């Protein structure tokens, strides 16, 4: 049904892509309506990318700037790679929400406000001297002032709920209004409400009524003559769901452990922005997930390592401060050559830094942050859904090569959501040791598989393979303790070669663009979306620009050097001071340039576009 089209007086415009932002008070339920809108957009066949904007305070006083909670999403017919540089539609439930979100709004964008919330008190809390709805400061935008609270109250009367509870339905009024604006159907949502509030019919009715009211208001008000339709996209066929990076990471770990036929031992200590992984896994015990909330990160790393020693898939998740604390245990994992997966969801540092803000500044630490020569693989996901693939790959590599692996996610990926194409379970590779266990008489803890250099994984409880390992230097093959000079040299070399050898099984890096050109952008991790979008735009304009994104940061993939040398210049955009650039310069002696953004925020597409333009002009 497309009620939007019933009224001939209304114009329907086609868009290829659009960005909308719901902003209100923490209590206003913006996350809920935002994610519902995301699902609807997905159902209508669009690709989506979302990002919440949680208040940095746990519960700031209502109406304050600190208390604003936002949910932004971008949806479109083409692949949507970021949550959008600038919203086209802003739903602001109070002055603070407007204050916080306005700067990012598109010129000429649409602002839908709940006028009932623009009281002197709220205006003051939002540091507004005058009412922006009246002082003309919103000129250049299309403002749609709606007394949402009042209208919601009226519409929800029949539900019989008390006024307070009814007022809380106004987020659905706003949603209904937005649905009309984007010519989206109501039905799926009404069905969702039925399922969701099965147990509480009154609430269901109230929300439903509020939703309809908002929709109909939009459909009849003179304030809105135009509405928009974003045509369906063309995603590869398959079944999809929406996931955040942290959800995908949790799913990836479970999937890998299940396919490996081993329990998943996830030992962790809560920390923003990694805690959701802990929460997700705690709720999945039926998949033989053994969750240990430990006393600190050192214990978490230790417990995960102990579990790995005992044959489980051992994983631990954390963020910067916690990674710092896991340093020593990572060294032990390198020496004992046990499969341990460390998920580091990066946040802005140094030290406690800005816990709710994103950053990519833990790369060099992941590569070098251990005493002694202690190399290990480092991976990074490029998007929320990619967190699944990378977490899975981390487990696979850890077991195949008997090594700790660090995965570098970040706050942006962790909280951002996108459509996740659910993989064919049977197609997922089975994480397994490189070689079958030798017969007991041929067994030695450090006798390596010649191909991968991985040592055998024979865990406690297995008859005939009793052995001792530890952090002291190991004798080659036997694993006995020795301080012999030549042996130490050999072992340092073997440990290094084992990790470097992983490159042999990695696919050569794919360049989006021609193999030769003027400017190659090289990135890793969450910068993917903005980089890809910027490069596509530049290429459409005929620039000889390419994009190469690294999923494996150690070892680097094969044939990376020729790929880099194919371009006149190489630019590395990073949310740090140039860490990957440092690595590439040292490795290939190339004058790689760094585009650094260290502001606790991801790149905007246009920021990278501008950098490209500048470099090409120069």
């Amino acid at each position, binding site marked *: 049904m497309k009620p939007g089209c019933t009224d001939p007086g209304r114009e329907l415009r086609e868009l290829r892509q659009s960005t909308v932002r719901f902003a209100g008070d923490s209590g206003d339920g913006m996350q809920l309506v935002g994610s519902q809108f995301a699902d609807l957009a997905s159902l209508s066949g669009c690709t989506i990318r979302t990002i919440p904007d949680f208040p940095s305070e746990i519960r700031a006083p209502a109406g304050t700037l600190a208390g604003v909670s936002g949910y932004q999403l971008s949806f479109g017919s083409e692949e949507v790679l970021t949550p959008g540089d600038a919203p086209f539609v802003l739903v602001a439930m109070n002055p603070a929400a407007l204050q916080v979100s306005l700067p990012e709004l598109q010129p000429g964008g649409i602002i839908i406000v709940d006028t009932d919330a623009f009281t002197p008190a709220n205006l003051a809390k939002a540091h507004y001297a005058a009412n922006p709805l009246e002082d003309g400061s919103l000129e250049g935008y299309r403002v749609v002032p709606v007394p949402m609270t009042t209208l919601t109250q009226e519409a929800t009367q029949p539900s019989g709920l008390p006024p307070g509870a009814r007022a809380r339905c106004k987020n659905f009024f706003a949603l209904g209004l937005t649905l009309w604006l984007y010519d989206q159907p109501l039905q799926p949502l009404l069905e969702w409400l039925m399922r969701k509030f099965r147990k509480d019919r009154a609430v269901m009715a109230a929300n439903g009524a509020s939703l309809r009211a908002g929709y109909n208001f939009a459909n009849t008000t003179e304030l809105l003559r135009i509405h928009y339709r974003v045509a369906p996209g063309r995603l590869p066929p398959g079944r999809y769901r929406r996931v955040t990076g942290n959800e995908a990471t949790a799913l990836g770990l479970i999937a890998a452990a299940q396919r490996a036929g081993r329990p998943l031992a996830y*030992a962790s200590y809560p920390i923003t922005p990694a805690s959701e992984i802990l929460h997700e896994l705690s709720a999945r015990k039926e998949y033989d997930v053994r969750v240990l909330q430990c006393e600190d990160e050192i214990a978490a790393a230790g417990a995960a390592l*102990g579990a790995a*020693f005992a044959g489980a898939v051992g994983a631990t998740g954390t963020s910067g401060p916690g990674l710092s604390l896991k340093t020593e245990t990572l060294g032990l994992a390198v020496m004992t050559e046990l499969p341990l997966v460390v998920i580091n969801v990066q946040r802005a540092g140094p030290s406690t830094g800005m816990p709710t803000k994103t950053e990519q500044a833990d790369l060099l630490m992941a590569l070098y942050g251990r005493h002694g020569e202690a190399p290990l693989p480092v991976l990074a996901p490029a998007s929320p859904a990619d967190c699944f693939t990378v977490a899975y790959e981390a487990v696979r590599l850890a077991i195949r090569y008997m090594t700790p692996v660090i995965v570098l996610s970040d706050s942006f990926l962790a909280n951002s959501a996108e459509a996740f194409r659910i993989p064919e379970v049977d197609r997922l590779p089975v994480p397994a040791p490189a070689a079958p266990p030798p017969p007991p008489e041929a067994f030695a803890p450090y006798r390596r598989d010649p191909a991968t250099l991985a040592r055998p994984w024979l865990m406690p409880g297995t008859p005939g393979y009793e052995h001792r*390992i530890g952090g002291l230097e190991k004798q080659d093959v036997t694993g006995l303790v020795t301080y012999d000079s030549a042996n130490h040299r050999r072992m340092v070399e073997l440990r290094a070669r084992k990790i470097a050898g992983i490159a042999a099984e990695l696919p050569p890096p794919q360049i989006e663009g021609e193999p030769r050109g003027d400017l190659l952008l090289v990135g890793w991790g969450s910068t993917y979306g903005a980089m890809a979008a910027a490069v596509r735009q530049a290429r459409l304009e005929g620039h000889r620009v390419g994009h190469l994104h690294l999923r494996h940061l150690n070892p680097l993939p094969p044939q990376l050097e020729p790929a880099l040398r194919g371009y006149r210049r190489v630019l590395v955009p990073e949310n740090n001071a140039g860490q990957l650039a440092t690595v590439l310069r040292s490795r290939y002696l190339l004058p790689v340039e760094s585009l650094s953004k260290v502001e606790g925020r991801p790149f905007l597409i246009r920021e990278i576009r501008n950098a490209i333009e500048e470099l090409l002009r120069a």
Partner: protein
Amino acid sequence: MNPLTVPPPEVPALPEADCLRQLTRKDFQTDQEVRWCPGCGDYAILAQVQKVLAGLGRPRHEFVFVSGIGCSSRFPYYVNTYGFHGIHGRAPAIATGVKCARPDLSVWVVTGDGDGLSIGTNHLIHALRRNADLKILLFNNRIYGLTKGQYSPTSEFGKRTKSSPLGTIEQPIRPILTALAAQATFVARTLYADPGHLAETLAAAARHRGAAFIEILQNCRVFNEGAFDAVADRATAEENRLLLRHGQPIRFGPGGRRGLILRDMEPACVDLEAEPHRAGELLVHNAASTSPALAALLAELEPPHFPTALGIFRQLERPTYEDLLMGQIREATARRGRPDLRQLLESGTTWVVE
């Protein structure tokens, strides 16, 4: 092993696997040359542990020894089971991981007064509190042995060492009291110099289901010679050892001549030969007490005014961490059915693109 874990990779079974025959202490010795100083108290402890293990009727591959760093922590190299020589202070954490991955194994932790009560106190306390079925042996020689003689958290106040030439200025930490405060379900003290008591205590810990903490007084020949002579010496033993027996009145000294009574909630000694009528007042040991009062009182006794209490201070029944953990897993499985990965991946709102 729990229902869900897939068994370890198929490996050729041994012709005459351990399980088939009665093991002896020898079976638990490794080919590694033991590297402690001549005369070190650790030798005696090693011998008794090996002996007790042999008596438990379990095959070698079902034992795991985890340790930290220190002379004492070299222990795993000398026990022919699975072993993990970890990093300083972290053994309880590593062992907890082992136990949760394989609740069916017998997991032992060996630590020292520095490893377990300086850098590792936090892990020790939380491991005890969780009550994972770990046997934790803390070798207390009141010194840092491996690093050649600095004072440890259990060193006596005023002790002069390499790092305290003018004497330490810290109250020693109390291992037993610390374990009691951590809600440990099994707390005991024994000493290197009494093989019988050592073996008996180790065996009791092995039988206990849950976290067992044993403080083992151990002589460091090189850096703290004679630290425990008062208790260790045959001569003074009877006077200075108070052997705890659950349900028994608390007596000590030659022929149990002396006894312990309570005076205003503080301990006092009585000479029962002089005052036989006071036998009725004697405190009666109760290792199963729901209150920490008695155990705490006993833990703090020390020479010269009191004997040193040896034996089991507390032993309580409480579900183990791994049982509760696996219980939740079974419960969840029962409620939601056998895990189907597809089902997991497809949970929540999904949609299909043709």
